[in-house]
């Protein structure tokens, strides 16, 4: 059986396949087809040499259909039905103005315009009790208006529906009957958490993209079937797990960070293979770098995810589980420039793939991180991207000269300076997900992927004092690879409020029991399904608004759990309040179906010899040493087991790994590159 994954990115669609019987590996790249992404997916299948589609037994897919429909504002005409008096909540949002001194600030525009936001007479209180019964006559008028306006999807959000969804269910059933062919989506189906604006936005966006993803998956399914790929199809979700296409169509917003989540799932799998439970994952793309932390083998989730959010823009909060990814504007294409203050800036502007870094000779003329890596000898102009793209060193040097001159530095030192700034930006982000959240990076393996990632990894690992630095297999198409490592997963979060005591803990455990039943239904594999449950509660000191997520073990006593909470609070925020009262505000169940994922099989040792792997030498410029000869090796031919001493360059079709002086590197039996400090190992 072949396991196959395809990942649709902005420029390229990647394919990775693995034959579990023969151990054969397939990979392919094709241009993304933006109008209908299934075209690019089919192109990769056609381009994968030797791949027999009929032998595919598992198909995972990550794509940007959902995020593109949102960022390009190309969802369907959507209406929103709210409690009387609250149709403007979606437009007012939270009313914050993070761009403090911009006196022309504009709030995020709502995805549903005001005349398509309708109100219904109904009201529940915070306990979910009915204050005003729902007036179904109001729904009839709304259905008529939706027909007249050509509405294709309707979201429903009533106050306190997280506590009692009854009114939303009545409205959904009635509207579905009156509006055949129109997508109807009630907030409790997507989120059972409080905060009406966040839930309104969640249901509005879910409705807005649902018909789009439904049509897309239908096209993709038909095309795959026509190619002979007939097996269960899975979509990569933002929570690091997969779901069937049908489950994804029901809750399309869970696909919003599909691509990056694939890489996170892959990094977790690499950590498992190395027997390292904590992994710090960094993916360096063309425009940005994304990092996230995996603790105890599980990706951390962001409990307050916002689309299009920045330091100066509120963005659009959505209540769906998304892996906690910190993204910064530092990638291979990031442009270096002197700013008005005379400081060297790198990013967030990027040369991207068009026009591309100067050395691509495709029209770019700004100095980029890639130009710096070429100038310093880390990249080989002839073998870059497997030799498919010859780089122009003189164009790179000309571009670097634009910042070298003003700084009074040599070409080489200017290139180093560009990398120094890029490193500092990446380290700030890596620290944000570790040190600043109370986790010690020295406990974690730093797994680095992405085109430029492996060239930068060794230095990042050294500065972060990571436990070791890891270059996984296929670092250039790692998100697709990661999708082969993902398991079916569903997250159940509910707002549930209790003063913490032994009775509340028992009640919470009972609530978790109910959520587990939901999980069993979700996976549809019967009561005996092998499901891994991870329970946690949102806990806080009385008076606080924000809690910390605290794991709950099945046999926890109240004292155990309280102590765990105090410790997490202290680790995260530097202090604990032992005498203060504790409150629970939410329950979170992660349910993962224990299915087989990609095997990290031992790599073939045949033909792996130093004299085969050694491709020659290349001069690389280091800060302390100046130009230094480095051996260049082919990753796929490096012998398994022995350690090699840096400096050294290790090339493969999608990436070049630089090992620094003072570091040693090993290829594991499963083909993973491990970089350590020579000194630390002794």
């Amino acid at each position, binding site marked *: 059986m072949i396991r196959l994954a395809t990942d649709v990115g902005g420029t390229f669609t990647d394919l990775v396949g693995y034959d579990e019987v023969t151990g054969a590996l397939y990979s392919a790249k094709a241009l993304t087809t933006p109008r209908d992404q299934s075209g690019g997916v089919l192109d990769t299948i056609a381009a994968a040499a030797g791949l027999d589609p009929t032998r595919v037994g598992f198909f995972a897919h990550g794509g940007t259909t959902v995020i593109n429909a949102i960022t390009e504002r190309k969802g369907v005409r959507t209406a929103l039905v709210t409690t009387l008096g609250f149709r403007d909540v979606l437009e007012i949002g939270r009313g914050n103005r993070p761009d403090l001194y911009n006196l022309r600030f504009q709030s995020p525009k709502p995805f549903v315009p005001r005349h398509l936001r309708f109100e219904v007479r109904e009201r529940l209180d915070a306990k979910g009790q009915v204050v005003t019964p729902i007036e179904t006559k109001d729904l009839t008028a709304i259905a008529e208006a939706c027909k007249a306006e050509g509405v294709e999807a309707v979201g429903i959000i009533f106050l306190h529906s997280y506590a009692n969804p009854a009114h939303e269910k009545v409205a959904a059933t009635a509207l579905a009957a009156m509006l055949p062919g129109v997508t109807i989506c009630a907030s409790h189906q997507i989120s059972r958490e409080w905060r009406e604006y966040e839930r309104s936005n969640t249901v509005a966006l879910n409705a807005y993209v649902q018909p789009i993803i439904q049509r897309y998956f239908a096209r993709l399914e038909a095309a795959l079937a026509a190619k002979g790929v007939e097996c269960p199809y899975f979509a990569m979700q933002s929570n690091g797990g997969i779901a069937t296409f049908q489950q994804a169509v029901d809750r399309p917003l869970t696909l919003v960070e599909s691509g990056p989540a694939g890489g996170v799932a892959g990094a977790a799998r690499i950590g498992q293979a190395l027997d390292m439970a904590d992994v710090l994952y960094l993916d360096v793309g063309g425009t940005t770098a994304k990092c996230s932390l995996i603790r105890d083998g599980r990706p951390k989730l962001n409990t307050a995810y916002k689309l299009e959010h920045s330091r100066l823009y509120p963005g659009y909060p959505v209540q769906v589980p998304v892996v906690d990814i910190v993204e910064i504007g530092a990638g291979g294409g990031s442009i270096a420039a002197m700013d008005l*203050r005379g400081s060297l800036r790198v990013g967030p502007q990027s040369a991207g793939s068009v026009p591309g870094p100067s050395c691509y000779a495709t029209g770019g003329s700004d100095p980029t991180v890639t130009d710096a890596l070429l100038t310093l000898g880390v990249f080989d102009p002839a073998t870059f991207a497997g030799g498919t793209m010859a780089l122009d060193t003189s164009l790179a040097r000309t571009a670097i000269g634009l910042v070298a001159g003003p700084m009074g530095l040599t070409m080489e030192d200017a290139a180093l300076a560009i990398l120094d700034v890029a490193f500092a930006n990446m380290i700030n982000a890596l620290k944000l997900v570790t040190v600043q959240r109370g986790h010690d990076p020295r406990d974690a393996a730093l797994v680095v992927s992405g085109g430029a990632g492996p060239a930068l990894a060794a230095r990042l690992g050294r500065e972060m004092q990571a436990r070791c630095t890891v270059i996984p297999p296929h670092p250039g198409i790692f998100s697709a690879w990661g999708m082969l490592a993902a398991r079916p997963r569903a997250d159940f979060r509910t707002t549930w409020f209790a003063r913490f005591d032994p009775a509340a803990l028992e009640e919470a455990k009972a609530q978790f029991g109910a959520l587990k039943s939901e999980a069993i239904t979700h996976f549809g594999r019967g009561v005996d399904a092998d499901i891994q449950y991870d329970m946690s509660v949102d806990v806080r000191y009385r008076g*606080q608004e924000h809690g910390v997520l605290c794991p709950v073990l099945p046999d926890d006593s109240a004292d155990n759990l309280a102590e765990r909470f105090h410790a997490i609070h202290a680790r995260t925020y530097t202090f604990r309040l032992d005498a203060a009262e504790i409150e629970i505000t939410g329950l979170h169940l992660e349910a993962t179906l224990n299915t087989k994922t990609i095997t990290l099989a031992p790599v073939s040792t045949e033909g792996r010899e130093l004299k085969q792997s050694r491709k020659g030498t290349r001069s690389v410029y280091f800060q302390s040493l100046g130009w230094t000869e480095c051996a260049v090796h082919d990753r796929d031919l490096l012998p398994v087991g022995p350690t090699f001493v840096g400096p050294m360059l290790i090339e493969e079709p999608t990436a070049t790994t630089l090992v620094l002086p003072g570091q040693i590197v090993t290829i594991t039996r499963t083909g993973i590159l491990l970089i350590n400090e020579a000194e630390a190992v002794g």
Partner: protein
Amino acid sequence: MATDPVTQEIIEGKLIATVDEMGIVMARTSMSPVIYEVLDFACGILTPQGELVAQMNGITLFTGTFGAQVRSLIRQFGDDILPGDILLTNDPFAGGTHACDFAIVRPVFIGGALTAFAINVAHYLDVGGAVPGSVPPNATSVFQEGLRLPGVKIMRADLLSAELVNIICENVRLPEIAMGDLNAQIATVRIAEVRLNEMVVKYGAVAVQAAFHHILDTSEAQARASVAALPDGDYHATDVIDGDGVSDAPIHVRVTLRKRGDRIEADFTGCPSATQGPINCARGALQSAVKTVFKALVAPQAPSNDGWFRPLTVTAPDDTIFTARKPRPTGWYYEGSVHASELVWQALAPLRPERFSAGSYASLCATYLSGTGNDGLPFIHVEPQHGGWGATAEWDGTAGLIALTDGDTYNYSVEVIEAKFPLRVNRYALNTDSGVGAGQYRGGYGIVRDYEMLEDGCMLHASFGRTRTLPWGMAGGSPGTTNEITCKAAGTPIRTYGRISDLALAKGETVSLITGGGGGWGDPALRDAADIARDTRYGLLTKSQAEAAYGPLGVEP
């Protein structure tokens, strides 16, 4: 000595990351809704001389207060600033704002040398005084506004002063919350110390100090260049403040901006003396109010520091409404200081229209509802109201946005409020009844928020400004609309308020908090017919409102 451009960039990045980290810890551990929802706090790092080099993105009220507060502590303590100290001040008359704002200042010593100050200023939910929340809208003296601690050592040798903790706990209504916030504040300045230490270890003390000075000097140079590009001249603005909380009488205020070369002086001479009511601000808050708008002029998006403000001087005689002295009340200082901001804003807007909008609802419309909570304990529900901002030369004003004095400030979730307090919100909507200033570009809409009391014994304190004087229009645009509070009980006529103290509310009564729309920009006759039609279709504008503002409407396209 100057740092190299690379180290400079790296240190600046780390400083911003540090103040942001301080902010995150504060918001996530605080026990006070004024902090975690309203974000009425700020964190910063200053040079050993007390010049701000980095500040978190929070609210604008603290734009210029940090430097004045820290320099005031330096003057007060002189050589008696020691490793292990943490200083506390909440004195409005020593660079601060009002007694509710507790400034926690950590002198950061590294290798025995004073390297920086880390500061966290946070609004405490209650600091004692005449009413819950400590800001009676009709206070006539600072002594009604709670406990003042003008420069004390809350920590020596990293140990909390038991005496001071005792004084605080015995003088505030909600001591647990106060102690929670004190803990959170101390955690943030300690984090700053750890991060600064890491910077010094990595780059050296000399490089870090050089980086501080480079930040200040380059910001100053950019600010001077920006000011120099404006035409020299004197620019004037006048405004009216609608009552001080004790008296409803209009208060006429004015500014003269003198722009000469690369400098600007904001002269408030001619403003009336301090008022009886608590909307006065002291000099520190005035400085901050002017700096806020100056920053919007010269570099709205760049990180804030004291270098930007070196070309700016603020002149005002002592003990005016903007330079109140002890014992004048300053509890609602931002209701006064926002008008200092708006005066400067009005005067500058014609010079650089691409940086400014027309007048907004302006007043933070802070609302205090207190009573007994669903858990049987006393509660104070504090929230600012969001409102309509003015139009710009290129687009319509923004609806339901927080006032200038705040910033990254959230409205309060209705679902969360109803779970905590015996209150029901029956409406949170755009205020289409009052409308907005018409213009080629129209103002943004205000909001209406209706609170129904579910229990007897609730009390309302609030101070809504701009209840009579309309937000100004620009370039021929019409003025916006007013803020107001209305109160409805069965069988009684609707009552209307602006600044109101001790309003007892019975079960079943409804308080409507209503904010106004922003001013328009440009001649309403120039408004695109499609924009008028869209607003009508959206239900923002009735036909008669549209015709009154824009003249007879053509046939809808």
